[in-house]
């Protein structure tokens, strides 16, 4: 029996448009979009947020968010976000990037945005594969993992090793909040949401560069059912990409609590 007045506990976020997403069945981009949108709503920043879209599966993210948005060239989102933030320092600027975009072609841009302590937030979706171009090896593809350009599995003798971006970026003094989360089950989805909120609040508090890496599934290009893909995240990806907080600057510690 209800002892309090009934409350709405689950609703469609204001920061999302009504548009139906183009993502494949079982793709976790939809979940992550929603978490970002809820964060924007809860912080009341929709009207001062400017997003920067990547090249990759999320190239059309601007169709789904009811905020201002621009579309960067492949890998250049952190540079573009830098330009926007320097021109409008009181706005909230975030990039949304995949692993090919951020950890291959855009490695220079992400490292230097972090090194400058650029006061932006980066949502980094790591699904270990190039999704939009249909399943080539990404800089984060696991050793032995099959892709269309590693048809017998990633051979590290030929293709080298995957990059752990959080560990790399956490070394930089300009980074204020660098964490890795996953969306393979409800508990982790909630932890991801909390991290996103901390990352955006870090920006609002002028703390500097914040990034949330989110381990994500790609059933289509992994050739798995959505359920098996989530199991793959849990059993194969997390051991290589451990979840956790890689850097939480003093200025962010109080926010995170």
């Amino acid at each position, binding site marked *: 029996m209800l002892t309090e007045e009934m409350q709405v506990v689950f609703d469609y976020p204001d920061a999302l448009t009504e548009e139906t997403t183009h993502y494949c069945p079982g793709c976790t981009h939809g979940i992550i979009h929603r978490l970002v949108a809820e964060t924007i709503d809860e912080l009341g920043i929709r009207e001062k*947020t400017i997003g920067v879209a990547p090249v990759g599966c999320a190239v059309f993210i601007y169709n789904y968010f009811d905020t201002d948005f621009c*579309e960067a060239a492949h890998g250049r989102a952190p540079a573009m*976000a830098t*330009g926007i933030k320097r*021109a409008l320092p009181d*706005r909230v600027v975030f990039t949304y990037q995949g692993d090919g975009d951020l950890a291959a072609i855009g490695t*220079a*841009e992400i490292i230097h945005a972090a090194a400058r302590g650029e006061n932006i937030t980066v949502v980094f979706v790591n699904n270990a594969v190039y999704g939009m171009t249909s399943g080539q090896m990404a800089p984060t593809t696991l050793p032995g993992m099959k892709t269309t350009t590693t048809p017998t599995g990633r051979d590290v003798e030929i293709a080298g090793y995957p990059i752990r971006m959080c560990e790399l970026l956490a070394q930089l003094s300009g980074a204020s909040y660098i964490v890795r989360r996953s969306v393979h089950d409800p508990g982790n989805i909630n932890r991801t949401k909390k991290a996103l909120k901390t990352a955006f609040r870090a920006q609002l508090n002028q703390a500097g560069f914040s990034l949330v890496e989110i381990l994500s599934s790609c059933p289509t290009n992994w050739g798995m059912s959505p359920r098996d893909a989530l199991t793959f995240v849990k059993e194969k990806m997390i051991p290589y990409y451990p979840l956790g907080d890689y850097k939480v600057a003093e200025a962010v510690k109080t926010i995170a609590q």
Partner: protein
Amino acid sequence: MKEFWKGNEAIAEAALRAGLEAYFGYPITPQTELLEYLAKHMPPQGRAFVQAESEVAAINMVYGAACAGARVMSSSSSPGVSLMQEGLSYIAGSEVPVVLVDIMRGGPGLGNIAPSQGDYFQLTKGGGHGDYHPIVLAPASVQEAVDLTYGAFDLAEKYRWIVIVAADGNIGQMMEPIELPPPRRVERRDRGWELTGAQGRPRRVITSIYLQPEALHQYNEHLQRKQREIEKHEVRYSEYLMEDAEYAIVAFGTSARVSQTAIKWARAKGIRVGLFRPISLYPFPYARVAAISQRVRAILVVEMNSGQMIEDVRLGALDRVPISFFGTMGGLVPLPDDVLPAIEKMVQ
């Protein structure tokens, strides 16, 4: 009152006086003093200055700041401009106003750091992928570099287009007495397209992607209409002793200035030669070149490259008159002594 200024610093000061709000650049000779001047003067004035990690990043920072509605520019030299071509294509495809200064040096490859006009093709013909031509303005003196830079921002904003000031290392590095224009403070106002946060208005999106071929075709038609407008209204050129000329030199920037001296010497020898100097390399003054080709006996094109603008001169002049070429490459600046024999050869 005239003051003695170095080209690169004068261009930087002209941009500040035009109301430059944000600058993003990367060191490269022979343009570096421009970056250094702005590094010194912008932060104390509360204007945004970032030394980027590469020209690739710099032009994308420019792209972002332009999307946010700021008066923004970058500067570089030829190899750096090659790196910026990706960003310039996106900027053209998004129609945001951007100013770029190219202090051209010798190529291809690393080439050298000496003055060149070898970027004519990469600047005027689009450079990056897709169909677009930035507005390209070529000064022949430090004063003209100042004036063109000062006006470039209004021009870029008028058309929501890229304006490139194409000077060579000679103009960037030399000192000349100049008069600086008055400082302006540009008021930020909403022009209906910039990204400032969707406060009290529908969200805005700036993108260059049109997945449907019909949609991209239509968008390109829109861009082409803009190019035709630019071609109709923004042609600029200058003429020297052309009234009674029987022969014409067509040259831009430093090579035009060198040619001017050679023309004086040729006139002293009784050769009635004049100079036609395109200031806007795009839009190229085809109509004026066509008119000149109908009344002179021959045209000599002088460039500090292997012959790039000459292709546009030929398009303007067609086969009406013989067109000869004198060029220097490798960062060599021609002397009037080099140009005079080419004039004499044209006359024979």
